[in-house]
């Protein structure tokens, strides 16, 4: 299958980005340097083309109860123009995907991981009641994430919508750079910032306007490499690494988005059972004391015995240390626990720490 391109593909190539296959798309992994791009977002403002993400719209009479049945967080508590982080689970409690659910006056918008868009769409269709319509609009939508403390002053120059009035995990529909869009105060970096959703035909127009508006903040394009290290410093889960069909949200530390008291939802019974019988392992953050960057699937040891494995790792440009996430057997899953990370015949001591890292 030929890799898909976002509407901004040519722009990335023009900017000298290194393009790599990711989730069926050719995406920029870096423009200049992952470390520089990371620091840019932490200190000023950066722009990510995340148009590979999937967008699925759900409408109809019973859309609310349907989305509430599909997901673990409580959709009924969302007001119009509010969003929530949530997951969809299988019956056995494993995770189908993690996503953001947006409530509009007449519909719900689910923003899902690129690699899972088709799987999620089929999953949703399988459970769809007759009076609900489900549409995958992913190919029509460009999504830009503008992240960092200067994201708001940058974007405010381009819109009459009062951005300061949009609270975290809320959104507004309005014009920005003359283009109708959804302006959402969300992101995957832990910095203040916005995610913008609009028709892909306006991609370059919006991209250019944002860069022009951000010039005095030295705004820069940011690739997927820095996106990964930025999210990791905040312990945001990455599907396929930290969570997947074989992990449940409770052991992933996502118990806060599992609302057992909201009524029935897919996976509820299995998750309740997992909770009552006690978790066997937990996703923990650790700092390596040594010159090994932890990578997915490296073993985690205590006293020479394997007690878990790494799911994500990175060099943290902010801590200037190597950090990672991994599942650790419950008896060792505590802050301060000394562990060993084994890497290709080498090993390094590490300590389980409180998260987020930064």
């Amino acid at each position, binding site marked *: 299958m030929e890799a898909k391109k976002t509407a901004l593909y040519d722009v990335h190539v023009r900017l000298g980005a290194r393009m790599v296959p990711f989730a069926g798309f050719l995406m920029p992994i870096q423009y200049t*340097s992952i470390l520089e791009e990371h620091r840019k977002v932490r200190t000023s403002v950066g722009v990510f083309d995340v148009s590979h993400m999937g967008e699925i719209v759900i409408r109809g009479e019973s859309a609310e109860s349907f989305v509430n049945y599909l997901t673990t967080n409580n959709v009924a508590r969302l007001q119009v123009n509010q969003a929530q982080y949530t997951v969809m689970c299988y019956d056995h409690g494993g995770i189908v995907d993690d996503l953001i659910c947006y409530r509009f006056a007449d519909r719900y918008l689910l923003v899902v991981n690129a690699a899972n868009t088709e799987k999620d769409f089929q999953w949703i269709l399988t459970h769809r009641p007759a009076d609900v319509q489900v549409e995958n609009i992913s190919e029509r939508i460009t999504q830009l994430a503008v992240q960092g403390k200067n994201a708001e002053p940058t974007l405010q120059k381009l819109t009459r919508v009062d951005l300061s009035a949009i609270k975290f995990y809320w959104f507004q529909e309005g014009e920005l750079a003359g283009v109708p869009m959804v302006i959402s105060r969300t992101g995957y970096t832990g910095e203040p910032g916005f995610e913008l959703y609009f028709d892909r035909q306006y991609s370059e127009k919006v991209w250019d306007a944002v860069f022009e508006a951000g010039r005095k903040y030295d705004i820069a394009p940011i690739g997927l490499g820095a996106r990964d290290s930025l999210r990791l410093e905040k312990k945001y889960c990455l599907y396929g690494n930290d969570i997947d069909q074989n992990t449940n949200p409770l052991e992933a530390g996502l118990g806060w988005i599992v609302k057992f008291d909201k009524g029935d939802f897919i996976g509820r019974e299995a998750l309740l059972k997992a909770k009552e019988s006690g978790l066997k392992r937990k996703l923990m953050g650790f700092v390596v004391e040594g010159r090994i960057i932890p990578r997915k699937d490296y073993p985690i040891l205590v006293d020479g015995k394997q007690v878990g494995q790494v799911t994500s790792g990175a060099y943290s440009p902010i801590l200037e240390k190597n950090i990672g996430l991994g599942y650790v057997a419950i008896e060792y899953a505590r802050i301060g626990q000394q562990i060993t990370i084994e890497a290709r015949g080498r090993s390094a001591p590490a300590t389980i720490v409180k998260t987020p890292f930064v």
Partner: protein
Amino acid sequence: MNLPEELYYTKDHEWARVEGDTATVGITDYAQSELGDIVYVELPEVGTTVKQGESFGTIEAVKAVSDLYAPLSGEVTEVNTNLEDSPELVNQDPYGAGWMIKIKISNPDEVNNLLSKADYEKLL
């Protein structure tokens, strides 16, 4: 792509500059660019014996970790200790300040196993 004419290359993207019985070793411009930001370079100690084609160290980039392979056999006579604190020198100047080790060549004939610039270029 910067590939100096006078160097020898390996298929694993190391280079060797041979001067008398000494070879200076590093990784190519192509390798550093593919690896992206380099954060650690783990090198052997002076006095270590390395063998052609065998690993003499590790390079950790933000994206991936790779082995470093010795282009020639011999004893390590010098190690670029600047890389301990400034691994980014490998990104910035792979054939100069980003050199890694110097080897006292034990078998000069091994040079025949290495690639010329033209041969290496064909691999890229």
